[in-house]
């Protein structure tokens, strides 16, 4: 092989993980640990996937020690009513912001414990390790911070 081609191929191979890391640093796609702000215990795992420039998040596992095994979303009021919490879609319709790079918004998040749905905004922070999940109630909002699992 031409030595120049070899060098180019080698550089490309070196860049692949760097580019992958850069993407992970701004994209919420992946597996995230949800954490109770009060007790700092991990309450579950949520997998966020992307399709057609839209994010969807499903509860992969419930790890909350207080949760009943096989619990269902009793307070949910839409088609998710009485669905098992494990496997439940809690994030949907989240799109990249047209104003703020690295911000995903316009979708909603469901709290399976209460059945309440809030407008949501996502932003990856701390080099891809933390996901800031912002839930809105009218004009006001509160943040949750999820930790990247993988």
């Amino acid at each position, binding site marked *: 092989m031409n030595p120049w081609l070899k060098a180019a191929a080698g550089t490309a191979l070196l860049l692949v993980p760097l580019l992958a890391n850069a993407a992970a640093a701004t994209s919420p796609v992946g597996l995230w640990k949800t954490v*109770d*702000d*009060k*007790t700092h215990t991990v*309450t579950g795992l949520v997998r966020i996937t992307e399709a057609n420039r839209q994010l969807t998040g499903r509860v992969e596992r419930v790890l909350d020690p207080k949760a009943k095994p096989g619990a269902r979303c009793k307070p949910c009021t839409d088609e998710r009513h009485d669905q098992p919490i494990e496997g439940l879609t809690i994030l949907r319709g989240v799109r990249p912001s047209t104003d703020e790079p690295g911000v995903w918004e316009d979708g909603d*998040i469901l*709290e399976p*414990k*209460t059945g*309440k749905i*809030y407008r949501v905004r996502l*932003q990856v*922070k701390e080099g891809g390790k933390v996901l*800031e999940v912002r*839930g809105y*109630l009218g*004009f*006001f*909002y*509160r*943040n*949750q911070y999820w930790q990247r699992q993988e």
Partner: protein
Amino acid sequence: MKISRNSLTDAVGKGILNPGQDDALWAFLADQSAHTPSFKPAHILYYLGGLIAIGAMSLFMTLGWEQFRGGGLLAIASAYCVVALGLTEYLLNHRRLPLPAGLTAALAVVVVPLAVYGAQHLLGYWPELTDQDNYREFHRRIDWRWMFMEAATLAAGAAVLWRYRLPFSVMPVAVTLWYISMDLTPILFGGDEAEFFSQRARVVSTVFGALMVVGAFVVDLRTRRDRDFAFWLYLFGVLTFWGGLSSLDSDSELGKAVYAAVNLLLIAIGATLSRRVFAVFGGLGFAGYLGHLAYSVFQGSMLFPLALTAIGLGVIAAGAYWQKHEAAIGHALRRWLPLALQELLEQRAA
């Protein structure tokens, strides 16, 4: 009751006033109301200008100012505070203009959280904050860590009110109490809940709002012969209470009926105290309940619209009866109240 210039001219025409007395009385009334907020061009300009200046230092604060860092923000906010207090002294003591003085006094209080935020940055209190967590978020983000800024604002508000006794200075105090009602729960119960907006936080807001309304009533009672110091406290107290109550879960129909009854009670309180804010929020809540009945409970009912119309007409009839016998009913109801409260109601109804 509203008195117009034409009313006095009519009184002269009917021989109630002598010619000339109407002019003297009108001049007296105009002088008395010069310092009471009303829908006059001068007053509109005062409040528009005041709200623009107050908004610039709070809701409309830009991200660019974060570049001043802690020390810069502290210095700028302190300078604003000193200038605003200087203007208040000047307007009050040299120009005898209490309305704009109230606005500049409020501005002095509004910049206090910015000064505290700058000081906290200087001392490294916000180490984890990034560019997304800036001063502007104070007005939107629910977070217990704003509490120091809120406590300082309350203290500054109390000091300004003690020094100047200008009703508009209550506004930043009332807004700050509203913010506290949302940020308080983690401090009371040791840490943030897992949910975004927990049921407990909603209950805390409702109770806090009710306490604000009680506080406003006490202020109203104590300043019944003075200017209206309770207006802003009532406004944000009712907003806090009603907002918390309306966001509470009430899965049962009984719970929803109780919510409707509370809203009717708000309307009754508004009518008694002559405070429109109770009637506005109570009306919104009750209309929401009727909407729930129409769209959920009696969705397919033929009788519901007829029954509701009958109730509406009944309420109109009650209003007509009330108007006809207002003096007698008012006298009979007020007889049972303490003297101070009787005086307050008469003052506000006038």
